């Protein structure tokens, strides 16, 4: 109870400090002092601390199961393990917004410290734009989503946390993803500040690149964690469903990736200034609208915590204010710098990066239209439709081929003007790729031509980068690792798609299912009791074509608070393939519905995403040892 009050009043103090910060910044902006006034740093630090106190007191309420707090009552339960009591803090609407705010205030403080070499006015303006966002979030939380609402009479027991959210990957998925999302807000504010100060330059590019990389790495890992969770928890055995909620996180990732490449052009050549600013604005807008779409209940998923129209409208209005603000700033202040842009040649690193951007924008429009069109149609005609995976696959796969080829050649080009070197090696690689693909695929798939073309391109990229990895100078290692990760990702996804097989059947205890590839024997079931759920464990013996036997033990859990049945897949992971078994009960019948999947190269999908983010992280630290 006390904790809730402390939390609530710290939030209000945090909001007050926003106004103090704005006042101090404006005063400091107009005087002639050299650097930023020290008071501003202190104020920003204090604001961050108030939000920390507020967040900690919410965690404390969750740990103590203080059901006088409405948020705790709605999302917690005394029998829940401590770890999930804590992670439950951000497993709900109110708490997750408080986490957003926490990261917002943390990042602006870090920005102020890390940007000491930058011009004073640029730093102050960044702070001001960032405070607009921060004030918006403070108001949003205090007005529509207060995590410290008081309940009376105090209930004895809470409602519990949806059991499928009680999972280690999902405990860290939101914080990591938010670090990525909120990182884009810094990019947004600072690009607006840079536009106003006419500071979109090489120096700015070098300085903001760190933030782009940090956001990109966190966003990548955050998306991957969500994907891993969906893979083993939702029981469908896939890792990407083109679900609107997933798309919403993919969209800022695409623009951020485009921005990451563009910043390099800005940093080296001081061109593409307007495009960089537009991308920065778009990325943050997409992150915000993602939050809006997910939170407002327009998209239905496990992420939708509550459907309160007031919240949706608030975010929508806030979003529009931000968009108009940024467009206004952009058109009023932006001046094109013509300095260096004179020498442009088609065959150069810049134009290859532009091609990369073209593809990113294309993929973005596909995902955007596929996600938004059903909502749009529902609003204007009340017709209910859904856009499934075939739409995305059909539109993205054909464009992946040229994209991969360009990606193989692009990084080899030099800035300004270049020619393709080692043409012979490239041609040899290309022939090897096509031959290898044809050899692997010829008995595997019906759609031979399509897959040969696609996988050849992926192999081509793979080999060119592999060679690069061996003859590489250290300076480019981060980029090569990231690109290598990407080529591995595409190869794993393609082969995973072609080679996966599955058996779905209904089976009784003691029965055997046999087909030409494998044999599934349902030995027995056992019951287990845990503090917050009872479970039924199925014992299966599976014999594959080579006579190898493995045992898999999928589980059915019946959670007590709230009463929900979940099925826990059992997965045997090896380097080459995953074996995935999930079972389900249909009616109080003796039949169990089972789904057995063999998924090649699953592990490599995760490994390659990790390589991508390792590449990004290396790039963050690279400049330090070079100096």
């Amino acid at each position, binding site marked *: 109870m006390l904790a809730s009050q402390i939390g609530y009043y710290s939030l209000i103090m945090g909001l007050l400090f926003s106004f103090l910060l704005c006042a101090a910044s404006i005063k400091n902006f107009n005087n002639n002092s050299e650097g930023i006034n020290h008071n501003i740093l202190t104020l920003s630090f204090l604001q961050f601390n108030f939000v920390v106190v507020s967040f900690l007191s919410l965690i404390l309420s969750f740990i103590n199961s203080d059901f006088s707090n409405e948020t705790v009552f709605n999302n917690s339960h005394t029998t829940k393990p401590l770890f999930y009591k804590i992670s439950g803090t951000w497993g709900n609407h109110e708490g997750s917004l408080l986490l957003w705010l926490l990261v917002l205030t943390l990042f602006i403080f870090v920005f102020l410290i890390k940007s000491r070499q930058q011009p004073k006015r640029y730093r102050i303006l960044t702070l001001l734009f960032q405070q607009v966002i921060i004030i918006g979030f403070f108001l949003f939380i205090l007005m529509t989503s207060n995590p410290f609402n008081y309940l009376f009479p105090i209930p004895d027991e809470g409602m519990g946390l*949806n059991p*499928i959210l009680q999972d280690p990957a999902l405990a860290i998925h939101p914080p990591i993803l938010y670090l990525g999302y909120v990182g884009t807000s810094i990019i947004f504010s600072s690009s607006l500040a840079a536009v106003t100060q006419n500071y979109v330059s090489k120096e700015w590019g070098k300085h903001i690149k760190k933030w782009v990389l940090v956001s990109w790495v966190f966003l990548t890992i955050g998306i991957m964690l969500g994907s891993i969770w969906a893979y083993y928890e*939702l*029981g*469908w055995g896939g890792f990407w469903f083109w679900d609107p909620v997933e798309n919403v996180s993919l969209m800022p990732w695409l623009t951020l990736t485009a921005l990451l490449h563009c910043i390099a052009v800005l940093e080296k050549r001081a061109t593409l200034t307007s495009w960089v600013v537009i991308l920065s604005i778009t990325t943050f807008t997409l992150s915000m609208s993602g939050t809006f779409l997910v939170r407002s209940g327009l998209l*239905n*998923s*496990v992420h939708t915590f509550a459907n309160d129209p007031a919240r949706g409208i608030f975010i929508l209005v806030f979003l529009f204010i931000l968009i108009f603000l940024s467009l206004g700033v952009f058109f009023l202040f932006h001046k094109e710098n*013509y300095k260096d*842009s*004179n020498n*442009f040649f088609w065959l150069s690193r810049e134009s290859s990066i532009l091609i990369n951007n*073209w593809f990113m924008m*294309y993929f973005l*429009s*596909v995902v955007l*239209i*596929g996600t938004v*069109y*059903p909502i749009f149609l529902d609003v204007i005609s009340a*017709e*209910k*439709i*859904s*856009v*499934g995976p*075939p*739409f995305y696959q*059909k*539109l993205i796969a054909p464009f992946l081929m040229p994209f991969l080829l360009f990606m193989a050649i692009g990084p080899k080009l030099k800035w300004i003007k270049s020619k393709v070197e080692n043409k012979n090696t490239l041609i040899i690689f290309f022939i090897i790729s096509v031959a290898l693909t044809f050899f692997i695929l010829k008995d595997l798939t019906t759609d031979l031509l399509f897959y040969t073309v696609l996988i050849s391109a992926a192999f081509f990229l793979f080999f060119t980068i592999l060679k690069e990895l061996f003859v590489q100078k250290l300076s480019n290692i981060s980029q090569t690792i990231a690109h290598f990760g990407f080529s591995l990702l595409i190869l794993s996804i393609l082969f995973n798609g072609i080679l996966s097989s599955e058996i*779905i*059947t*209904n*089976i*009784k205890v003691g*029965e055997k*299912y046999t087909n030409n590839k494998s044999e599934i024997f349902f030995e027995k079931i056992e019951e287990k009791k845990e503090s917050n759920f009872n479970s039924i464990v199925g014992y299966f013996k599976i014999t594959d074509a080579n006579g190898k036997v493995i045992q898999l033990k999928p589980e059915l859990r019946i959670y007590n608070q*709230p*009463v*929900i*049945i*979940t*099925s826990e897949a059992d997965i045997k992971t090896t380097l080459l393939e995953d074996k995935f078994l*999930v079972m*389900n009960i*249909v*009616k109080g*019948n003796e*039949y169990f*519905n089972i*789904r057995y999947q063999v998924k090649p190269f699953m592990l490599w999908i995760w490994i390659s995403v990790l390589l991508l983010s390792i590449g990004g992280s290396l790039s963050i630290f690279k400049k330090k040892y070079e100096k």
Partner: protein
Amino acid sequence: MYGKKVKLRFIFLALILISVILTVFLILQSLKENVVYFQSPSEIKSLIELNKKKIRVGGMVKEKSVSINSYEVKFIITDFKNEINVVYSGAVPNLFAEGKGVVAEGFLKDKNYFTATKILAKHDENYMPPEVKEAIGDK
């Protein structure tokens, strides 16, 4: 006549414009082919001609209608006005049960029989897809 820069800008703009038009055209075209419409049992009853395309049907799983054997699950989807028989062989989600909301994706055999290829997973026992809520009225 024009400087190199102007020419370059012009080519750039033209390229962007062309690719935007192509992209939009391509996306809309494939959107037309790949959207899945949602229909309630009553809407299916009132169809004049059968659609061969994939659709989604939603409503409640009728009480005591689920039967199961080793290769398929049969059940009835109802919106309390009309109902439709569903035959399904595939993975059944956790929260599939009699008296609960359901969305099935697949093809119509005729106005009374539906062959489902997928039953959509729900994550929460209190949660009801808005389509289903609308399909069964305010119940």
